[in-house]
């Protein structure tokens, strides 16, 4: 579905490589986190996926389309992109028009567009505010408006750049539960996040980027146990994994408080795990 081969990218001829020989395959229906410190190349990599940036060398192929030779508007039918800051993508004066904008541009018929807008605004809890001006809404609501306008295009792949930044915990969970449902329905999700708890709770696969290279790429539970690589990349494991790591192999598969509590309870029932 997404195939990246030996991708290198620099912003101009004199600049250093921001992406340095990246090769990745991402299959249909995957839920992938891309993590790394500020400046590691995460957003640059995302922009390669929808053709906003083209490779300096190497190739990026989306559903068989080479991004170097495919128009961005064609790629937009395959890949939806949510920017980190909703204010960078919202510009219409009502929520309804904002969601409709991309639909009209991709040639959706008016009655079909209306039906989709109703459905998606219901899904995201925006049905009561379709006539409001997005800029009078809270940051969390604006983020959902931006997400709705991306979802309306019904692409198979969704790329999300820090979708939960600046949200409070409840808003964060709301957005991530929607994304999780979309993944269940078969959409491929690729997400950049700084929040290791969001990553451990939702993403099945995690890629660590460091200085434009792939430092780790594996199941999330495995990657988030690699304290050394994470430290190098300016990250730290989520609290429960940090705690589990201090007990050697005893809590090897633990990632959540619930897992850990179960493991501790079974240790005390079987009586006397020596640590």
């Amino acid at each position, binding site marked *: 579905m997404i195939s990246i081969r030996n991708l290198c990218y620099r912003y101009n001829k004199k600049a250093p490589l921001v992406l340095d020989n990246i090769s990745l395959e991402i299959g249909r229906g995957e839920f992938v986190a891309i993590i790394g410190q500020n400046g590691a190349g995460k957003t640059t990599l995302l922009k390669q996926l929808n053709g906003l940036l083209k490779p300096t060398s190497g190739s990026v192929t989306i559903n068989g389309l080479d991004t170097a030779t495919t128009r961005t508007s064609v790629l937009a039918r395959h890949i939806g992109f949510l920017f980190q800051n909703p204010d960078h993508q919202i510009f219409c004066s009502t929520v309804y028009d904002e969601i409709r904008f991309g639909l009209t541009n991709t040639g959706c018929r008016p009655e079909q567009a209306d039906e989709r807008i109703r459905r998606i605004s219901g899904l995201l809890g925006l049905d009561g505010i379709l006539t409001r001006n997005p800029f009078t809404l809270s940051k969390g609501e604006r983020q959902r408006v931006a997400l709705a306008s991306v979802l309306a295009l019904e692409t198979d792949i969704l790329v999300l750049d820090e979708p939960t930044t600046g949200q409070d915990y409840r808003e964060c969970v709301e957005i991530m539960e929607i994304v999780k449902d979309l993944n269940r329905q078969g959409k491929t999700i690729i997400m950049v996040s700084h929040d290791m708890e969001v990553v451990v709770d939702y993403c099945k696969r995690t890629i660590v980027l460091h200085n434009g290279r792939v430092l780790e790429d594996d199941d999330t539970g495995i990657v988030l146990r690699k304290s050394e690589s994470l430290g190098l990349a300016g990250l730290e494991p989520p609290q429960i994994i940090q*705690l589990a790591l201090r*007990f050697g192999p005893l809590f090897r598969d633990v990632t959540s408080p619930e897992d850990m*509590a179960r493991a501790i309870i079974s240790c005390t029932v079987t009586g006397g795990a020596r640590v």
Partner: protein
Amino acid sequence: MIRFNDVSFAYEDSADFAVRNINLHIDRGEFVGIIGPSGAGKSTLLSMINGVIPHFYKGDYYGEVLVCGKDTVESTCGELSRHVGSVFQDPEAQIVSTVVEDEIAFGLENLNIPAGEIEARIDEALRMTGIEHLRHESTASLSGGQKQRVTIAAAVALRPEILVLDEPTSQLDPAGSRQVFRTLKRLNREHGITILIVEQKVMLLSEFCSRLMVMDRGQIIMDGTTRQVLEHNDRLLELGTNCPRVVTLTKLLKDASLWSGGYPVDVNEAETVVRKILEGANDQYPEPVLPLQ
């Protein structure tokens, strides 16, 4: 050091009070974390301490706010800036100079500090925040965490007694966020600066703050030592505020009657809790604390 007496405020053009009936007393040297859902009034509360309200944002203002004994309505923002340093979410929006030391000099020049003393104050601020090595760097080349520490250094150079910070780590990666908190801890411990920080990262607040305040719909609904507030973890989750995961774990262990001690505030303490349970030890550390009334 900071006192709110029956304070309420509604922004111009808004029917609702952003903060309501706030009574608050903060002593010198406290490190206070403020959490709560969006729209709870957290930023409004900070803006009433540095004087941004009522001097820049107008509205209906009731009660009085005293900062270092001065009524903030009667003082100018300039006077208040000698007592209160402010740091915001986005360091990019706050940094105006191209070189780190110029950024720190900027506020000092505005206060007409003599040139010789500016030099000494820059040295001091860089040392206090642990960024001496960045002195001659271009601000554009810095990482997010470094930039935010530069804005803190610029605030500290004015020798404030109080620092207020509004989600200073929201744009930062985990390492950058921790650097910022370590810097704040140092300013608090070694230099006695009183710190108030609004933050969504409850894990870092629990680890670093001595006092936590929880706001909801314009009011302070919980206020106590970090450990006391964490006793009410159910309530925090109900409010839509996150809880440190080690607290959620400890709650599950308490529900299973495996632990009757207090809540751990960080991974080190959580390790102690788990080891004691596994060893079958009866002694309880952290000690249980009385919940808030």
